[in-house]
């Protein structure tokens, strides 16, 4: 979904979210409460600059508006694949964004992720995946890599991966699979404003994704392995 259409449906035509390049930022009012919105659009590749822009908005919210909820609007093709970004420490900039969001959470800000278009690996891991909860629109797409590229890197036949992806959520793109594995909490259906209201109301504070993945059948072992480590003699 187009970010502006989404913002209009959620917050009205005077939503106040501003686009600068691929970066989205704004303070909106929702049910009478101010809410910080931080996001990207146009399938933005997340490099050092865009990671820092998001981190800046998080730090400002922590400093100036204690406790204010943060909504992350996610649309990214993944990390920026450039030598310059590697040289400048893109992994450190990504970690910094993750640390900012994590500090916000620890200080009582609810942090919600919403994948409204597409999410890929490196651009997603320190945004939606580090939030209290990450939800998605049904038409969004989440994946690590396209199947042809995955076939090339793993040296496995693409046809085999395509066939497996029909039955095994581990290989296939799609938000439904991420829900089954617990990585996405739920999909927003119908009235989007109502979905946001519910998402804010029941944002978890503990990481329950492995348990969710086991309960939903998409990731059967993770939770039990964690428990086995806790119980190991």
């Amino acid at each position: 979904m187009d970010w502006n259409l989404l913002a209009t449906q959620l917050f009205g035509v005077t939503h106040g979210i501003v686009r600068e390049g691929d970066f989205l930022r704004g303070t909106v009012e929702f049910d009478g409460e101010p809410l910080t919105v931080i996001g990207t659009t146009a399938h933005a590749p997340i490099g050092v600059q865009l990671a820092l822009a998001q981190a800046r908005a998080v730090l400002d919210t922590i400093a100036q508006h204690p406790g204010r909820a943060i909504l992350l609007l996610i649309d990214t093709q993944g990390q920026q694949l450039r030598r310059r970004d590697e040289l400048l420490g893109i992994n450190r900039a990504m970690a910094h964004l993750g640390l900012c969001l994590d500090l916000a959470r620890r200080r009582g800000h609810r942090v919600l992720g919403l994948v409204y278009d597409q999410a890929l690996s490196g651009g997603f891991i320190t945004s939606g995946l580090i939030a209290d909860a990450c939800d998605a629109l049904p038409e969004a797409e989440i994946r690590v890599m396209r199947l042809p590229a995955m076939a090339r890197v793993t040296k496995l036949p693409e046809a085999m991966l395509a066939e497996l992806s029909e039955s095994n959520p581990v290989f296939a793109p799609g938000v439904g699979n991420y829900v089954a594995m617990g990585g996405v909490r739920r999909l927003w259906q119908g009235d989007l404003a109502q979905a946001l209201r519910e998402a804010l109301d029941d944002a978890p504070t503990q990481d329950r994704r492995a348990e969710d993945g086991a309960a939903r059948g998409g990731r059967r072992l993770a939770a039990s392995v964690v428990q086995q480590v806790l119980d190991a003699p």
Partner: protein
Amino acid sequence: MISYAECSARERLALIVDAGSFHEWLPPAMRLTSPHLAQLGVPSSFDDGVAIGRATLAGSEVFVAAQEGQFMGGGVGEVHGAKLVGLLRRALRDRPRAVLLLAESGGVRLHEANAGLIAVSEVMRALLDVRAAGIPVIVLIGGANGCFGGMGIVARCADHIVMSDIGRLAMSGPEVIEASHGVEEFDSRDRALVWRTTGGKHRWLSGDCDQLVEDDVAEFRAAAITALDAARPVTLAALETEHALLGARLGFDGNEAQSLWTAMGVAQAARVPDLDVAALRALGAR
């Protein structure tokens, strides 16, 4: 001198912690394997590529994990990731003096793509819980496969990083960047270029790692001991400092390490690739 890079994950563990002190949890005898690899016709490993447990380091109790680069490049799959999460949650419960992560990983194991991605993010959150509890997480990087992808981010979430000069710490591998933007963007076969862009010397000069050591398990052990009290609380002030440091990097125009080192004030930056670790340490970190 024993090369850290040439050791297996278990050999490293045995040599880094106090002799004979490593007690493994979920050892290979339990045959805990990936549920996803068999259907791909890919061999499994009875530890899913990571050894975890408790040990002592200079007499203090530490929890330890070591990723095995020889198995799927240290890639994080569902079980591998869950073992790391379990270790970190147990650290939160039992409060050892520190957690040591001997990282060697290409990041998410693509054979378990979606499960691996979620697992890495669970590791990240569990690690930050441990760090927030004041228990330092110390990452050692010196394996041939480096520390990439999601694990490259995990490493920078930790309190302290020790690298050897042959260690590499980054996000995307040079092959991936070359495949995406061409050989003129990043020639993955140019080893000198790869190391000066992502290697231990660059990461130390730029302050992306905290200690630079020789490729020697004894040096890694000594560095880990000095880091036992290296807890760095995550505060708003600390993150503002970090933000300013990273923001200043954007003022650099280019993609060549030598120019960056010069811009950082390193004298005779052209000599850096030829200097040994001791000479490089004498230059000082930025």
